């Protein structure tokens, strides 16, 4: 049986015979694969063999294989350079210059993300409704079943204008306005800017974008809320995403549900996950069956009609979807940030 040393010599010969045949880049690459390929390259196989070689042979053989490898690498490099330098006809036009593009502006990432949300709901037969950003206490709070002086208002920390005017803290007032002027069936989403008296930090800003939705009809149930929102979240985050509904409290819905999706970052595997805090779940939206008092406030009979509603922060959802650590990036309007999302 041939010794390892013999086989090294054999491989060297084989390479030296093959090398002069390689004239273009493609054949140089083939040669590289045949001799240096990670799995089946002949030199790589020699290294494998070396592992089980007897100790007395190992040192000498090891040196030889290494020398061979260095020689082959050098030769291949030389061949490759040669292949590129091969004589080519002079050209009038250098076709490898970059193409000429007309610059098309990029939409803001929040607009993009909001449009994606809108598209999903439009496909389910929802209409888009808008309303004023300077609202009255009635539409922003009272009609939504926040009694005056109720501590529930603390969660919707408000910027006040004067008298009963304030900056809307959610787009729910649009829901109230639509219910006041429309008869069921109602199926709408309300996107828009909302305002809270927040001290800016990575996940809180005094202004952000929200999309809320509302369905009112006969026979609408919590099961419908679940089915529709699950569909929405799968359309937005992917078919396989896990969704969970858990009880919560909002003055304007009863029963209320917070909706979580599984953490896209760690899938619940990282106890110190920055995104989900190790719970494996990320809160995405608030929802619930429209409170009967809210329906009464707009003269819709809660015995005859029922409804469900949801609200979601566009900014925070986009942060989660794109892995953006700070909300303020959206409003700094650094073009190096904004322009990335056109390619999303």
């Amino acid at each position: 049986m041939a010794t390892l040393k013999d086989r090294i010599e054999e491989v060297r010969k084989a390479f030296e015979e093959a090398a002069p045949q390689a004239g273009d880049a493609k054949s140089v690459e083939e040669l590289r694969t045949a001799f240096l390929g990670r799995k089946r390259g002949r030199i790589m196989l020699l290294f494998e063999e070396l592992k089980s070689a007897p100790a007395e042979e190992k040192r000498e053989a090891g040196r030889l294989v290494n020398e061979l490898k260095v020689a082959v690498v050098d030769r291949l490099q030389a061949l490759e350079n040669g292949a590129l330098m091969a004589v080519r006809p002079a050209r009038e036009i250098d076709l490898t210059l970059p193409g000429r593009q007309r610059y098309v502006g990029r939409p803001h990432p929040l607009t993009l993300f909001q449009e994606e949300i809108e598209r999903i709901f439009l496909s389910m037969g929802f209409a888009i409704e808008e309303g004023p950003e300077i609202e009255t206490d009635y539409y922003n709070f009272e009609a939504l079943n926040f009694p005056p002086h109720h501590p529930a208002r603390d969660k919707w920390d408000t910027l006040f204008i004067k008298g009963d005017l304030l900056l809307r803290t959610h787009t729910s007032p649009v829901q109230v306005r639509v219910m006041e002027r429309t008869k069921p069936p109602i199926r709408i989403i309300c996107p828009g800017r909302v305002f809270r008296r927040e001290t800016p930090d990575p996940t809180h800003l005094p202004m952000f974008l929200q999309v809320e939705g509302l369905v009112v009809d006969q026979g609408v149930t919590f099961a419908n809320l679940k089915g529709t929102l699950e569909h929405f979240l799968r359309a937005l985050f992917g078919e396989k995403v896990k969704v969970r509904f858990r009880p919560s409290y909002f003055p304007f819905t009863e029963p209320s549900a917070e909706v979580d999706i599984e953490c896209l970052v760690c899938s619940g595997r990282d106890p110190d996950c920055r995104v989900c805090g190790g719970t494996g779940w990320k809160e995405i939206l608030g929802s619930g069956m429209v409170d009967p008092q809210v329906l009464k406030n707009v003269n819709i009979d809660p015995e005859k009609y029922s409804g469900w509603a949801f609200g979601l922060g566009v900014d925070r959802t986009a942060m989660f979807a794109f892995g953006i650590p700070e909300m303020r990036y959206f409003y700094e309007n650094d073009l190096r940030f904004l322009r990335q999302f056109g390619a999303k």
Partner: protein
Amino acid sequence: MKISQDWIREYVAVDLPRQELVDRLTMIGWVPETVEEKDGDLILDLETYANRPDTLGHLGVARELGALLRLPLLEKDWPVAELDEETAAVADVQIAAEALCPRYCGLVVRGVPVGPSPEWMRRRLEAVGLRPINNIVDVSNYVLFATGQPLHTFDFGRIGGGRIVVREAKRGETLVDLDGRTLALEPGMLVIADESRPVALAGIIGGQASGISESTRDVFIESACFDPIGIRKTAKKLGLATDASYRFERGADIGFAPQGARMAASLLTQMGGRASRGLIDCYPRPPKALRVRLRLRRVAELLGVVVPEEFVVDVLGRLGFRLEPAAHHAWRVDVPTFRVDVSREADLVEEVARFYGYDRIPPRVTPVDSFPLAANRSRERLARIRQALLGQGFDEVINWSFADPEREAAAAGGRTPVAIQNPFSNRASVMRTTLLPGLVENAAWNLNRGLEGVHVFETGNVYYWVDEKKHREDLHLGLLSTGLRPGAGPSGAPAEADFFTVKGAVEAALEALRFDPVVFEERDHPSFEPGSALAVLYRGQAVGFVGTLRAAFTAGASVERPVIAGEIDLSALFGKTPRPFEFVPVPKFPGVVRDFSFLVDRAVPYGDAARILGRLDQPLLEGFELVDRFAGPPVPEGRVSLTIRLRFRHPQRTLVAGEVDKAAQEIIGHLKAALDIQLREGIN
């Protein structure tokens, strides 16, 4: 709120592995924000809800767990060692403000040696993050965190005349509170007073003078129920927030007041005190028990799932509701006093749903039997505008609706901004009346970071007062361009943006609306350099401006280069009706093109020539464009050469040279007469 598992176990025999406990609490609405092990105990920091004051103590959380796990709630006895003297004989309680204090209970405990609390009680308090102080203060904290009922303990020796008067504060009264602050009181604020002065701010904080000290011998225990709105108004006004006010403003359990006092008395008698006989219980108008109808059918109608009748009865019973069967699978439900959140059928349905499990309700897509016919027009128009501007190479930005009042004044729009009463920052204390300062800010930010050009637009509202009472918010388009335009290829140097970049973008955006074309007219505006702005007119009404921003304005944001910008009031335009779309057949016969170059005085704008050409009654003239404009040699000083391309066509036949020549001569004749033009040599 921090909850100790060991403490919970005093009320219900929970025995779940840590993760299961966390998950199951979460799925009935109690989300542990943190979970930590401490000395063999498990401490859960539960998210609280503004409508569930009953869960602001361990008892309430235990009740929830009992209902979830079908475990009984464990009752405890609170035996009290009593003296012979009647409470009523030593203390006199009067409620002088019934609306603010519907119930007040109290008793006296004599001879408690003030000192450290027993080890077990200190451990309980420390577990939920409290610092033990002394046995008497600790007992009131213990009862609060055990049951959610806030108590107050007075040094009875310092209550003048043994009189407890629950009344509104008088104008000018003050109280030095337990933390040493002097509170200025006023009518509307509820106080506990003795025969002469306030000794506590009811339901919020005690007074220093009547507080427990080392020399305290006799203690008056207060266990009351105060009006939530009154407490909230007072606490907000004085900027106070305490464990007691937090609970009272959410609603205390009016039924529990006597038991709270008894519990405290029992604990204090275990520490060596003796309680006065009988509890004072001032309860002038006990409210009628709240009764709510619940129909099994309604549970299914709202939830979309049939929940078994036995389940409904069992879970509501465990939560403390009393169900009395009525006809047709319905119940009359007595709501316990601690459930201040429940008053309607829907509230009960939520309780059923929570414990039945939201995860067991089958998801069903909302059935749709009709679709909206009309699109949202203003959004559709906005989308067209955005698309056009992106196509013109402008990037979209979104700026704050807030503005710095000084920068806003510098933008000189002249409108009265809407001020915010409680801004989060003085530099964002008004609402913007124009989009321009935000865009200039964007230019500054990006130029300072090495970008060679900034071409951006924003669509969003501006806000202003029309008069004292009436405000408006209008949807505006703002756009700004400065520096090199992006996207030049290998053979072309990137172009510098100029006035016509922005003017062209405005034209493109507005053309996308298919309205009547806008007209530009030279007009000054305070935001723009004099003589370099155009008003954008739609049917004679100014709807916006484009121009070079005033240097003083841009320099304020440290932008030193020329900035072209424009702002259009889209609200004014979106109300209009676009031209109906009409298809025009593609011409069948060839047209003829004639270029004319002529010299004209430099003071004569191209717009004048265009206006004359546009008004001609010349049926063969299909259209015209400016193809060249040139000044400098060989064009004489003071004049400019314009080349205009005229396009002729007849709809029904091929044109003959003669008729084109004739029409062209007539057109040139018109221009000559109106503008003193001179045809250049060598051009036919």
